[in-house]
């Protein structure tokens, strides 16, 4: 029994998993937040898809004999179209858009010549399998893809060949930037190492905005890959975010401002050498700016730590807190005595607290389990996150203002870019 909002998803999913004739019964949507009486009325009413009495359909689904089609076994291979398309510049631009192969913005048409130029930027063979990707683990089968298929998407996004190893590294993780959930979630990538300067990435003024080709196209290519390499990003089918998220166009691409940071770079924290080129992934709910928070206007020294702690009040503890701090903030925190990322993470973990009562009203936040939980009452005050490793810090920005941004996101993993050169 599925609520009607998930009709297309349920039907295509059953088919993709090999049971195209599964007997799915639909109820009105939503059931969340409805009273017992309202729900019983659903049961006495009709299936909004078939128009037939719902419970009669449920009983029939379990008792009507199977047809020959229902009992079929075997395999089918879903087609993805011809290996190449031929047309005029304008008709191809339109064809890619109509076929859902773009983000609905203009692309560079992936001609053989341009794809070959991209392929020259890696030592890996064009037909080597890079990885597997799915719009949501468990919900959809993963597709595989080759170096050449990543190259086609890289060209489309407007990436230069020099950027290609980064895109292969992203592909190798199998992380989709368009994760399918009814939440409208977002992804971020932190770039570390000398490649930031080699590619002239922007980690200064306007780092996260539309001011640099590498930042812009690497982020965009990730979304195009997430549509084309795994069949993702089809709204209502492989993308279910009710409201969607604007960050999904280009994702958050954050090259760390290593030279102006008083702290070790992010990849070094994760065990890599400073001269290695590394991309690190975060996932969760969105990003916001911190300068509206309490404490930042304190005279004469801004109380960055208080602002940060206040900023994360509505965050879900399901994901962590990623702070993207201007170098001025990193130095300012040092002036306040927080000399390391660990020191500020530790302070934030201890001082960012919630009452048990409040946690119970938060959909994506959890209470401690086990022995710790035994003595808690509604009025108990507990840390919002049980461990300091929920807090991550990356230094980025042009030092025009001591501001920070923050994302309700968790660290996932870091991978080497150098492997893909």
């Amino acid at each position, binding site marked *: 029994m599925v609520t009607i909002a998930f009709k297309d998803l349920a039907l295509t999913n059953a088919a993709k998993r090999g049971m195209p004739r599964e007997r799915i019964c639909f109820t009105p949507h939503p059931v969340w937040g409805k009273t017992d009486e309202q729900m019983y009325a659903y049961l006495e009413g009709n299936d909004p898809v078939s128009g037939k009495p719902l419970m009669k359909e449920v009983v029939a689904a379990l008792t009507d004999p199977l047809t020959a089609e229902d009992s079929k076994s075997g395999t089918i291979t879903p087609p993805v179209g011809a290996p190449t398309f031929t047309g005029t510049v304008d*008709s191809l631009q339109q064809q890619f858009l109509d076929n859902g192969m773009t983000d609905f913005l203009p692309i560079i048409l992936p001609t053989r010549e341009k794809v070959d130029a991209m392929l020259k930027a890696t030592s890996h063979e064009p037909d080597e399998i890079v990885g597997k990707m799915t719009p949501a683990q468990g919900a959809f089968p993963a597709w595989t893809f080759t170096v050449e298929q990543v190259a086609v998407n890289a060209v489309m996004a407007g990436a230069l060949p020099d950027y290609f190893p980064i895109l292969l590294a992203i592909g190798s993780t199998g992380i989709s930037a368009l994760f399918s959930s009814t939440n409208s979630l977002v992804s971020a990538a932190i770039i570390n190492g000398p490649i930031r300067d080699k590619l002239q990435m922007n980690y200064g003024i306007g780092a996260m905005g539309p001011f640099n080709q590498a930042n812009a196209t690497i982020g965009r290519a990730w979304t195009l890959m997430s549509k084309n390499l795994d069949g993702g990003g089809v709204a209502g089918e492989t993308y279910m975010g009710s409201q969607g998220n604007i960050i999904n166009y280009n994702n958050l691409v954050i090259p760390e401002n290593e030279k102006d940071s008083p702290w070790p770079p992010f990849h070094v924290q994760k065990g890599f050498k400073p001269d290695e080129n590394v991309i690190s992934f975060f996932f969760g709910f969105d990003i916001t700016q911190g300068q509206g928070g309490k404490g930042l206007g304190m005279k004469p020294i801004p109380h960055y730590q208080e602002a940060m702690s206040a900023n994360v009040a509505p965050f879900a503890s399901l994901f962590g807190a990623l702070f993207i701090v201007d170098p001025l903030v990193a130095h300012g925190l040092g002036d306040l005595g927080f000399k390391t990322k660990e020191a500020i993470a530790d302070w934030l973990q201890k001082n960012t607290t919630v009452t048990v009562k409040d946690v119970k009203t938060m959909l994506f936040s959890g209470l401690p389990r086990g022995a710790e939980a035994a003595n808690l009452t509604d009025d108990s005050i507990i840390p919002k996150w049980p461990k300091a490793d929920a807090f991550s810090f990356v230094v980025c920005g042009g030092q025009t203002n001591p501001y920070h941004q923050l994302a309700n996101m968790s660290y996932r993993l870091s991978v080497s870019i150098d492997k893909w050169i």
Partner: protein
Amino acid sequence: MSPVALAGVPALATSDKKADQAKKGAVPASGSLLEVLNPRGLPPPITLVPMAKRLDSLDGKTIYLVSDGFPGADTFLNQIAIWFKKNMPSVTTVYRLKAGGFADDDPKLMAEIKEKGNAVIMAIGH
């Protein structure tokens, strides 16, 4: 369902009205033909799964009502149990919340249902 839809490609033909408009508006500079590559990955083959044999009747049978954990599913299945009690009292219903995240399997529960149940109603959505 056409296999084309399964690949997540709405349509591979370009015969819709927008494409026609685009052709009409095509500029002379783009008149010559170009060949470009398909950006899509390789979907795995789909193995068809035959549906389980249906019951002749639900009378006297045990039906597991399984919640996948989405908000509202528990309350909803409780109403289904009440419906059976009222309308098909010979049916025994057993409510279970699937362990693990909503996308994870729960092999223990599946084994229990196989052993003790005759049918399953799963509630998905919220």
